[in-house]
């Protein structure tokens, strides 16, 4: 239930502006891959192209290939809605549906897929909340609105919502940047656990976080403001943080950037 992502020669444009240039990489199944780099280097934009969420932004378009186990996500006849059911996403700010209960939030994706059987829904909701390390905290108030939880709990609720539909890949766009350190730790523990079942890709500004949770790290950078972001280097996290090949990577991770 986890798939390999192979990206080759990917360019992303916003209208005429080239935001990301010529990215090629392989993301291994059942691993955590972290994207690091300075603000504006296109790592979030690039992450969104992995489940075609960039298409929500008017004028955004892509050149190149994204293969999910031999299947091109950008081939004609591929429905972005179907892609997003296979490649789930967790956002920077926790975004549970405010009018839905905790239960309905987790069940929402299943209901989209047409699951109506109450027993099946109850099972999956429990399994997903357990999978997101949230079950013990919310099991007595599943009918309460999800917006009443704390920020960290809300984010884990969003992760439960994402894994309830059993995707192949989970993309996380700075999932801890709006959270306090304790909640962050809870999410990091969870990421560690998620990689047993899913391919996880995480964008983070926090380099300790990348070092703690990821197996592979990709460093993005841009030559100057207004220039497109590029993938500088990618490799095992240990190597990137101890002995990077590129000087720019070393400057960035040691804080001598700019």
């Amino acid at each position, binding site marked *: 239930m986890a798939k390999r992502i192979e990206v080759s020669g990917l360019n992303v444009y916003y209208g005429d502006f080239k935001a990301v240039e010529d990215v090629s990489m392989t993301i291994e199944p059942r691993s955590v891959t972290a994207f690091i780099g300075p603000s504006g280097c296109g790592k979030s934009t690039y992450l969104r192209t992995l489940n075609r969420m960039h298409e929500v932004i008017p004028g955004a378009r892509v050149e190149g290939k994204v293969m999910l186990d031999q299947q091109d996500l950008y081939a004609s006849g591929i429905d972005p809605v179907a892609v*997003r*059911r296979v490649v789930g996403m967790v956002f920077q700010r926790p975004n549970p549906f405010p009018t839905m209960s905790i239960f309905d939030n987790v069940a929402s994706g299943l209901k*989209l897929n047409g699951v109506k059987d109450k027993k099946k829904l109850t099972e999956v909701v429990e399994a997903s909340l357990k999978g997101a390390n949230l079950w013990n905290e919310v099991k007595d108030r599943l009918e*309460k*609105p999800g917006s009443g939880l*704390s920020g960290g709990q809300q984010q884990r609720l969003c992760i439960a919502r994402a894994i309830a539909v059993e995707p192949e890949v989970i993309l996380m766009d700075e999932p801890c940047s709006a959270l306090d350190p304790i909640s962050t730790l809870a999410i990091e523990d969870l990421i560690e656990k998620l990689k047993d079942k899913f391919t996880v890709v995480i964008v983070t500004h926090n380099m300790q976080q990348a070092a703690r949770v990821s197996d592979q790290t990709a460093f993005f950078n841009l030559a100057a403001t207004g220039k497109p972001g590029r993938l500088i280097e990618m490799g095992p996290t240990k190597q990137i943080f101890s002995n990077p090949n590129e000087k720019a990577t070393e400057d960035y991770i040691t804080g001598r950037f700019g």
Partner: protein
Amino acid sequence: MSSTDGTAPPDRPTDRSTGPKLDLGPVGHLGDRLFAGLARGSGGLVVAIVAFVGIFLLALAIPALADNNSSFLFSRIWEPGGETPRFGIAALFYTTLVSSIIAMVIAVPIAVGVALFTTYYSPKRLAAPVSHAIDLLAAVPSIIYGLWAIIFFAPILRPVIDGLSSALGWLPLFEKPATDNLGVVFTASVVLAIMILPVVTAISREIFAQTPITHREGALALGATRWEMIRMAVLPYGRSGVVSASMLGLGRALGETVAVLIILSVPNGNDPWDSSIFAGGETFASKIANNAAEFDSPEKTGAYIAAGLVLFVVTFLVNSAARLIVARSGPGNRRPRRNRRAGTNPAQTEGAAT
């Protein structure tokens, strides 16, 4: 000694100051004072006007009500003036409410559809013209709507009325009356629907467009289609806004006068009052406007004023309800009380989050 409010100039230089003395004297608060006076005056004036309208209505209505020989609220007879004045508002109340509610039932789904179309479906270059066209409907004077409806639109609606009454005629509301006339309540309702469409559309559009991108992306990232995204994120967020927009539309429909006056045929001996929406009738506003020429005695005038008072109260209640709904549930946080309670639940284990 120097004044304590800090606006008067200091009368004692401090000898501790080292640099050149700063000018901290009065800066000139004339503008402040003028504007504060103006603002207070305007606020007071509005309250005074509302109070005077209410007092005026009450003062003229009470003597007439005291002389009334029939139940004001439950009678359908309207014979004010004369030796034994008898008048009741039941018929007016019924027609006013039914015509406005039908107008709302027609207008709200269309308004929500148009609002969703312009915010989430149409291409950008189509959204603006459509929105402007709807807004233009609000700029048409109601007399024009009335003329257009009775001359052009009512004959077109005839087949619709025939169809509805043959399908649902077993309900008193849709019963076909004995005489065929064009000026029926249903026609007035359709025209009222057109008239309240702009305001309901505009408010719905605003609220739908404000749906936070995070909610919409949350739905899309789960693999929601556009309609599913609207159902999961946009409609729940905009629900209270749409409800209050509908109430505002209802308030406008209740008080609409000229268009209704032109369209509705007044019940008479040949064509008596009928509960069907396919018969003529009179609303509060159209009744008063129709009979403005008859305000010759205080008793007669008082009867109409009393009817106007009821319209005033009903409209006031509808608008208050709309405001209450908006205040109770701002967009996006429909159940603030319960949320807060859930947030302070002792089951919460994340200490750092509190």
